[in-house]
């Protein structure tokens, strides 16, 4: 148990350090003065002096890196070139939106995919199985933004049931309840499109695992004991197929975060990914670096959450033996 967690934690720290190092070096390999990626020429001389001091720009590179790591870990992310305000102030309001989009899309698509996959495995050759196979291969080859653009065209232009852009209506509705409803209304199409794009590959994977598991001896035994079909399917077969499903959850995470960046752009959501794009387009380097860092952090945190779920689901880890993968 301890070895599993220490290895996972070590992995997370390694990824975190890599993200920070990538951030640090990417913005320093640029042509010209490294200072120009942190200090905008338009800043006042006092501000320039202060930033130089804060980032230790006159110190050797390794000292600069240490200072940088400390600043990143304390969310002291520098000052945006475009708005001239601390980047963290700007990012703070966007993080919940990205988390809501990612979280709802992940949970819904994995739940739907798992359910359909299990159904497809039970009734081989049925309608569900065909649906699962087709939607799976579609989700592999259709660009996410294309599907989302078509959905936007259909449900925001041709049949205007959903908003064309934004995370909330402007002006905001008065009551808290109406505001929540408004937020959901804006979230439904982006999150829904991610579910449509995502459930297929889940379903295929779960189906393949379940087909294999349902052919095993212990399922035959469960049948021989006369257990009800639902219980065999979920408590016996799916329970033992759960750990590898969670592994896929882990592997799919980075792709889903990438997808969120595109989704936020298509639907013009007030999120971290859209902020990253806007900052890159506006050559706002501190803001771009910070947005990249936050996205990396989100991935790491959800990675750890999936690890925790894996530890709960796999008795070999819960009980404490070394995991073999």
């Amino acid at each position, binding site marked *: 148990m301890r070895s599993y967690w220490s290895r996972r934690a070590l*992995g997370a720290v*390694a*990824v975190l350090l*890599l*993200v920070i190092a*990538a951030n640090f070096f*990417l*913005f320093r*390999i*640029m042509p010209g003065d490294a200072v120009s990626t942190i200090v905008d020429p338009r800043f006042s001389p006092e501000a320039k002096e202060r930033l130089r001091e804060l980032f230790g720009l006159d110190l050797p590179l390794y000292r600069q890196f240490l200072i940088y790591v400390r600043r990143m870990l304390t969310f002291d992310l520098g000052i945006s070139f475009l708005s001239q305000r601390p980047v963290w102030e700007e990012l703070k309001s966007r993080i919940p939106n990205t988390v809501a989009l990612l979280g709802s899309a992940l949970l819904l698509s994995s739940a739907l995919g798992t359910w359909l996959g299990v159904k497809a495995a039970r009734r081989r050759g049925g309608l569900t199985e065909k649906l699962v196979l087709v939607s799976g*291969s579609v989700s*592999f*080859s*259709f*660009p*996410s*933004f*294309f*599907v989302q*653009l*078509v959905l*936007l*065209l259909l449900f*925001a*232009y*041709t049949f205007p049931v959903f908003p*064309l852009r934004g995370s909330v209506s402007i002006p905001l509705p008065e009551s808290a309840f109406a505001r929540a409803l408004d937020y959901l209304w804006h979230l439904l199409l982006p999150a829904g499109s991610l579910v449509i794009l995502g459930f297929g590959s889940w379903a295929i994977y779960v189906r*393949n695992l379940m087909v294999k598991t349902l052919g095993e001896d212990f399922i035959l035994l469960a049948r021989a004991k006369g257990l009800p079909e639902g219980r065999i399917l979920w408590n016996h077969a799916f329970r033992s197929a759960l750990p590898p499903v969670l592994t896929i959850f*882990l*592997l799919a*995470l*980075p*792709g889903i*975060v*990438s997808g969120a*960046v*595109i989704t936020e*752009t*298509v639907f013009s959501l007030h999120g971290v*990914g859209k902020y*990253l*794009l806007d900052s*890159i*387009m506006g*050559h706002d380097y501190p803001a*771009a*670096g910070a*947005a*990249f860092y936050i*996205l*990396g952090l989100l*991935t790491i945190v959800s*990675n750890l959450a999936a690890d925790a779920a894996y530890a709960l689901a796999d008795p070999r880890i819960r009980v404490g033996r070394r995991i073999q993968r």
Partner: protein
Amino acid sequence: MKIPRWSFITFFLILAVAVIGPMSLSKGPQETVAKPFAPPVWSGGDAPPPFSGNLSPASKEMTIEWDWDAPENLTLRGQLAYDKEVTARLVWTTPEGSKYTLSSFQGSGVWSIDLDARDMTFKTALGIPPFAGATSLLFPSRGLHVLSLEGPSPSEGSLELVLPGGRWGLLGTDQRGRDVLSLFIVGIRVSLLVGISATLIASLLGLSIGLASGYLGGVADNLIMRVVDVLLSIPILPILMVLVGIWGKGLWQLVLILGLFSWMGTARTVRSLALSLRESCYVENLRSIGAGSWYILYRHLLPEAMPVVLAAVSLGVPGAILAEAGLSFLGLSDPRIISWGRMLHEAHGFGAFTAGAWWLIIPPGLGISIICLVFLDMGRSIEEMADPRLRGGGKS
């Protein structure tokens, strides 16, 4: 003879269109051909289709059956040559019978005509104020319009009359009035070029790293695989975005960046293959007769890994194409280079939605999807050729 899989046939068709298509276009794809957001000819409701016709020594009169509102513009271009002294006029007759002289000529030699209904000189020649529309004067109602050349026949030359319609081509026009079909055809090249060359770089990297990792084993293997794990657990698109933002948006920068960040999968597959081959009897025999590491790697492991790499190339191309399209869609590509992702970016950014211009979104999107499906299927069939165990069943 066995018929090749559909994907190979489609691939060669796409390749042919990518090579021949741009050459067969009469106009450059960047040229404005009709009004912005003109729908395709076959879908466009009451908007008039584009019209063009010729006047020549053989046919000195042209009739235009016009059943729509006045067109946006009218252009008349060309040259007529006379070998003797003449007086000639170009006369426009409306359905009501009123006549307008568009241009006249006196003398001998070449008569160059370059008329545009938006020109001030054209309007003043017709006697209307410079801010009025000339076409509403020339097209007062629906019916038969006649353009005729009065005077003796010219010895040679021809005139072309063009009326841009409200509908255009097979796929309409975009926000700048460019022909979407030409843009679509030219866009194939970028997808193929970036997809294939980025994947080639990635596969070469993956092959060498995988072979080294699997064959060397030990600390090097451990280190490389940790690096792969870490790279696979951070979202790649934000890194690509940052790199493109810093390095520039050129095509070759994009290829290089994509190649550098998509070798991990191939490296993993090749490594596991090399790992199992390293322990196999025949490699052990080779070693026992004194074969060096380089010799074994080059003459035995590399050919064994080739089919796997070939399949990886084919299976990796969709990823690279999707990544390129994604970056272009986000606007992180050279605006001078036409690609399908760029088309979608412009459609999203420049008001295709408010114009309801589905013809700007569906063709490039479907194009990307079809190319990806083709490469996926080719990759699978290469895999089957390399590994006969996959053949037959078809379903997993």
